Structure formats: structure tokens, C-alpha cells
């Protein structure tokens, strides 16, 4: 009884430490504020800005910024602000979920392969296989096999969401797996790990206590790059008919559609481009801060 209380105290003060360290990281703080604003914006936005993102007002097409349309309208007269908000919701949720899925998969396989010699060969050959598979046909096969089943079971929107997130996750975990494995290979020969092993610590504990915290920084980098990747890949998927219905805006698609109008209406490229970059930048700084905060060596200083 006493013991568990003591443990809780220790861990809560540990989290306190982490938070204290995190707060002192200026970049991380700004990053998290920007990130929260963006997430808040896309969640609350539709209630404040009630124009429907798919509503066409053909007479107002190609108009510049005005009170009625603060970010102007597109070539069919749809309000760009509403489209940015709606697009952000999709892009951020797809970006994060897909990134998370690919990280979990990649880290899991990477750690297993690095830690257990017997699994290394088969798991890495499996990774090679996935690296070698041609992406486009693989995605087309996934649509063919799963789209209808998924949209029947979960409804068209959730079904598509699951399909997209899985497609991106399943085709992007390999780099993380190889990087994590390489780090684990080096780590497990270090003194503190061999020491832990020699006193009989269980492999699962070695992984969670000693290995995982030390491979955090490449994972964080993969996470930041993964989000950018997922947001852009989502827009590419819609060309295959794998993505959301064509009138469904996402940042990636807004950016792509605007490239043809780059010379006439540069602002149309600017907004989606800016918000994709802002999201990725804020996550990058967040990750930086989190890594520093979780690293006991830095936290001590």
C-alpha cells in the first residue's frame, strides 16, 4: 500500500519535472501555443464562421479578400476561409492519426528487430519487402478491396478516413523501423543496458526503461516529417480516387488546385502552404521541447 503511494509520488514529481523543463523551452512553448490555436481554430471555426465550405456562389467567384470573404473565394465562388477551416480539420486529423500509426508500427518493429537477434532477419526482410512494393498499385489494390466494405460498415466518411489513414500508415513506417533498429543495435551494447541485462531485468523492462527513452529523438524527427508527409500524401491519394469525395477540401488538395492559378491568385497557394508549414513547424518545436524535457541528462542541468 505504502509502496504504491510512494511510486505515484515519484512519478507525479517526475512529470512535474518534465513540465518544468518543457516550460523553459521557448521554442516548445511557442510551438505548442501555435499548435493549440490551429487545432482550436479548425474545431471551433465552423461554429464562428458558418459559411458552408462546399456552397457555391458563382457570381462571387475569384474575388479577393473582403468582409464577406476574408480570404477571398475560389474559381467556383466557394469561401476560402471556410474551406481552410474544413480542410484543416481533415488534414490535421489525417496527418496525426496516420503519423501516429506509422510511428507505432515502425517503432514496434524497429525495437523488436534491434533487441531480439532471432527476429532481426525476418523483420528486416519484411521491411525490405514493404520498401520495394510499388506504392501506387498497392494503394489501388487497397481501394479495390476495402473501400466498399469500409464505407458500408462505417459510413462513407469514416470509412474513407480509416482507409486513408491505414494506407498512409502502412506505407510509411519502414524508415522509422530501420532508424530505430539501428539505434537499438548500438544502444543495447552500451554499459547501462548490458548492466541491466546482467542483473536479470526482464527484456520488456529493458525496452521500456532503457531503450525507448533513448531512441526518442529519431522518433520525434520521424514524427515531424511524418505529419508533413501524411498531409501531402492525402492530397495525392485523392487523385487515385482513394481520398475523400472531390468536393471535400483538405489543405493538400487546396494547395494542389491553387498551383494552376499561381500567377493570377497567389494568395490561394499562400494560405494552405502557410498552414501546412506552420503545423509542421509547431510540431517540430513541440517535439524538440518534449525530447529535451524527457531526457534526464538535460533535465538535470
Amino acid at each position, binding site marked *: 500500500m505504502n509502496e504504491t503511494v510512494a511510486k505515484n509520488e515519484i512519478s507525479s514529481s517526475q512529470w512535474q519535472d518534465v513540465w518544468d523543463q518543457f516550460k523553459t523551452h521557448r521554442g516548445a512553448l511557442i510551438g505548442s501555443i501555435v499548435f493549440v490555436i490551429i487545432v482550436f481554430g479548425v474545431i471551433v471555426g465552423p461554429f464562428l464562421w458558418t459559411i458552408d465550405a462546399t456552397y457555391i456562389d458563382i457570381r462571387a467567384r475569384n474575388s479577393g479578400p473582403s468582409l464577406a470573404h476574408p480570404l477571398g473565394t475560389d*474559381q467556383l465562388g*466557394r469561401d476560402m476561409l471556410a474551406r481552410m477551416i474544413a480542410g484543416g480539420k481533415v488534414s490535421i486529423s489525417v496527418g496525426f492519426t496516420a503519423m501516429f500509426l506509422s510511428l507505432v508500427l515502425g517503432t514496434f518493429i524497429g525495437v523488436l528487430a534491434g533487441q531480439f537477434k532471432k527476429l532481426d532477419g525476418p523483420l528486416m526482410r519484411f521491411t525490405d519487402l514493404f520498401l520495394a512494393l510499388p506504392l501506387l498499385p498497392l494503394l489501388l489494390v487497397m481501394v*479495390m478491396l476495402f473501400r466498399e466494405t469500409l464505407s458500408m460498415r462505417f459510413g462513407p466518411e469514416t470509412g474513407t478516413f480509416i482507409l486513408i489513414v491505414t494506407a498512409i500508415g502502412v506505407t510509411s513506417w519502414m524508415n522509422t523501423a530501420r532508424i530505430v533498429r539501428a539505434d537499438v543495435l548500438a544502444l543495447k551494447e552500451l554499459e547501462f543496458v548490458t548492466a541491466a541485462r546482467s542483473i536479470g531485468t526482464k527484456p520488456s523492462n529493458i525496452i521500456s526503461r532503457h531503450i525507448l527513452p533513448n531512441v526518442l529523438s529519431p522518433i520525434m524527427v520521424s514524427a515531424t516529417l511524418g505529419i508533413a508527409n501524411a498531409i501531402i500524401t492525402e492530397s495525392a491519394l485523392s487523385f*487515385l480516387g482513394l481520398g475523400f469525395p*472531390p*468536393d471535400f477540401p483538405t489543405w493538400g488538395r487546396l494547395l494542389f488546385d491553387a498551383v494552376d492559378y499561381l500567377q*493570377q491568385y497567389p494568395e490561394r497557394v499562400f494560405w494552405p502552404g502557410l498552414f501546412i508549414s506552420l503545423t509542421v513547424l509547431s510540431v517540430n518545436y513541440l517535439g524538440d521541447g518534449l525530447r529535451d524535457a524527457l531526457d534526464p541528462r538535460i533535465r538535470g542541468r
Partner: protein
Amino acid sequence: MISKLIVGIVTAGLLFTQAAFAGRATDGTVKIIYWQAPSTLNPFLSGGTKDVESASMIIEPLARYNQDGEMLPFLAKEVPTVANGGVSSDLTSITWTLRDDILWSDGTPFTSADVKFTADYCMHPEGGCAQMSKFGGVTSVETMGDYKVKVTFDGPTPFPYGPFVGGESPIIQKAQFESCIGAGAQECTEANFGPIGTGPFVVTMFKTNDVIEMKANDNYRDPNKPAFAKVVFKGGGDATAAGRAVMETGEFDYAWNLQLAPDVIARMEEGGKGTPISGFGPLVERFMVNSTDPSPSLPEGERSTVKHPHPFLSDINVRKALSMAIDRALLVEIGYGKAGKLTCNVVPAPAAYASDANDSCLVQDIAGANAVLDAAGWERGSDGVRAKDGVRISILYQTSTNAVRQDFQALIKQWWSEIGVETELKNINASVFFGGDPGSPDTYQKFYADVEMYANTFNGTDPQSYLGNWVCSEIPGPDTQWQGSNVQRFCDPAYDALHKKLTQTGDLAERATIAKALNDMLMQAYSIIPLVHRGRMSAHANSLGGVVLNTWDSELWNVADWYRK
């Protein structure tokens, strides 16, 4: 503009332009860009537009269509007709008389043996010839001396100009392709990449799916042509980049098929280095309205088959209302600009075949559409969607991935919502949508959707085989591996009977009347809903002269006449 450039058409088949030619190969290099790259120069093996048109600079047919859809003799002395005795009076054979002064680019004479060989090559059962349908109904091709060829058909053929006419049916050299006939056709890379021809240019380098270099043909029949000494034919990229390279940066002289939004084209034109040009063939962007039930709840093999009629689209009032709610003028303005025209027909051209019986569709009529649905008993539910007997009008609307088509989807979805029709949009990658893979649920032929939008056309000027697409026997289904051109599963015995009559009629005026009637039957059943009569938009540099855009044949049909201003 066209009439200014062309002074007269001479029976010999040559066009003289006003510019004084300094002579052959004096104008340097002309650079052409196609955003789809040619993969072979043998149009019999590929059939893709990019391949047919690039090859048309090298190999030529006996006769071509001009920009008005009229036939001009190229390698023949004249176009055979019943009047000049070239076509037999029972319409079962046609005899071509060839010009006797034509040399292949290797210096050997062009004779009737080459023409006969071309037919043998394409009609070989193992060759996989893409243009085999041009030779449909041909029973024999015989040479009659060195410069006469007789083509015999299995029955009266009112339009005997399938073989050897137009860019899809050029003549290849017997000496070069003799060993490539039949199954061997697949392995003659050297010949396929560098056919010897009679045209104005000769291939000097061919890189598949990338670039072709050509030089002027020393043995071309007109000693003053072509004006250009060299051609660079680049492929790849996208339409935007091709338009930019001609109109904004001036790197290229001619860009093909610029399917771009009108304001993007307008902005490029401001670059001042080039001019967009457009021309119209019979290409129509249309809706196909599924008359069978595509519901996923049906067992596989029964979806979208004639076994199950469509739950609400089988009501003509619904189809009619869907058509009435569309503002075609706005679609043209937003999507195609100068490269689009209003139409209410599936056969909008040539003029003789274009009906005017359906022109009420030209004006959008939302109120009228609502009235039609009200009268037919389709009541609006609490969600604003109309329903009758528990069947809601909820439409799955699919098309291929393409910026203009996605804009159309968004617009039409909104108009249909105004008449109480719910729409779900779906876009499919073009290579899957237009691919005939029977395993894929997403092909246009399988049609697992309520309506689908795409464009189709016909080659040459005769709509007979095009109208034949919609006879009952052409309905695709599991028993035909989903092959068949009656995509919307239209079936009307009266239509089939009338089409049969068309195949047996020789008189041109009467043929036009029947073709119009067939078109009207399709339109008035609202089985096909036409949206836009699409033209071809290309662009040429301001310094390039002699360009005449032709939608009935290869766009590069008169490249021999191009010159530098």
C-alpha cells in the same frame, strides 16, 4: 483566320499558303510539345492519340480530312465516289487510284503493293492491330497494277472510307514491315520506332515516352516543302506546363490539347508569345444515366445488370428533371471557355447530322424541374430530399480525376440539391476508370454508380458506328466480361431497328435524317444527358505560320505547310 490563310484547295491535295516559301528546310527547327509522350510511331500497335498524331508527320494515308471534315486526296489521285466511278454502284467495293510520283523516304517508289500490305498487316488475326475496326467488313484488298487498289466489302457499305483514310489508317512500307507481320509485330522495335514514310519528315532519333527528333524528307513530293529542316517533338509533363512553354516562355512552337480552365489560358495568352486556337469535332462531355440498379446490396454479378431496373432513374421524369436543372452555359464558361459550345445532342457535328429538336435544354429551368418532379409524385422529405414509396433520390455521381470535371461535379451537385436531389460525388483515376479491367469495380463500363460523366467522340465524319454503341446487344455485363459500349444499358427495339436501317442506307440526306432521329431518341429518353460540346484547344507560337487546327484528323495533318514568319 483560316480562310485568310488558305487561298484554295487544289485537287492534287496540296495547300498553298500566302507566304512565299524560300524552299525546303530553310526555316530551321520547329519544336512541338505534347504533354502525353508518344510511346511508338506505329499507330497500328498503339492507337493512342499521341502516337497517331506524332506518326502522322511521317506516314500518311491515301486521303485525309481537312479542318471542315471534307476528304482531301493525299497519296491518291482523287477521292473515289460513286459519281466518279471509284465506288461501285452496289456500294460493295471502292477502287483507289494512287499518285505515281510518290517516293518513300528511302527513295524507293510507293506502289499499290504497300497499300495491300498495310491491310494484310492490320487484318492479321495475331497482330493485335489497334485500327482493326477501320477494316471492318473488308473481305479483300487487291492490287490492280502498280497504282490501283480495290477494296471489297462483305455487303453494301455506304461509307467505304474506313481503310486508308485519316490519321489512324496510314500506309506503311512493305519492304520495312514485311517480317513484322502477325505475332512478329511486337518485336520489330526498329521499324516501330522509325517507320519509313512518305510524309514531310524522317525520324532521326526516337526515345520512347520522351522525345522524337526528325529532319526534312529529301524525297518529299513537294520540292519546296517542308519549310523546317528539323523537328523536335517533346512529350511529357502536363497541359499547364505545355501551354506555358509556348505562350509564356516561348521555348516551344506548338502545344497540343490544352485542357485548362479558361482564365488560366487567358493569363498565359498575356505572356504574348503564343496564341491559343480551338476547333470542334463531335466530342461531347455527357452524363450516362444508369438504367439498371447499381446498389451494393445486390449480389456481385447482378449489380448494374439488366436484371434489376434502376429504382428511381427508370422514371423518365427524374432523368428529365436532372437535365433541366443544369446550366449548360455556365458549365461552358467555367470549364472550357473558347473550347466549349452549348449542345443538346450527343451527335453535335458535322452540321448535317446535328439535330435541333432538343434545344430546350439550353436554358436552365430549376422551377420547371421541380414542377416535373412534383407532378410525378416525388415529394420532398424533412431533409429536403425527394422520395416516393420509400425510394429517395440519392445519386452517386462518378467521373474521372480531372480539375474541370471536379468543378462540374461541385456545381451540378448544388443545382441538383435545389431540386431536392441528394448527390454523393466520387472521382476515380482515369487509368482505372477507362481501363476495362473486369476485376475492378470502378470502370466506366461496370458503372457501379447512378450517373457518370465523361467525354466521347467518333473518328471521321460518319456517326453510324458511334450510334451503334447504344443498341441492346452492346450492353456490358458479367457474361461479356463487362465489355460493351452501351454503358448506360439503354435498350429500345425501335432504336435497334432504325440503326439497322441506317447501315443499309446509301443516300447522304436520308442518312442524316436517320442519324438525327436516332440522336433524338437517345436525347428524349434522357438516357444520355449532353453537357458541353467540347472543342480541341491547342496553342502555337506567334512566329509559327501555316497552322490550321483540324479536329477530324491528326492535328499535325498539314505540318508540311508550317513555316517561320
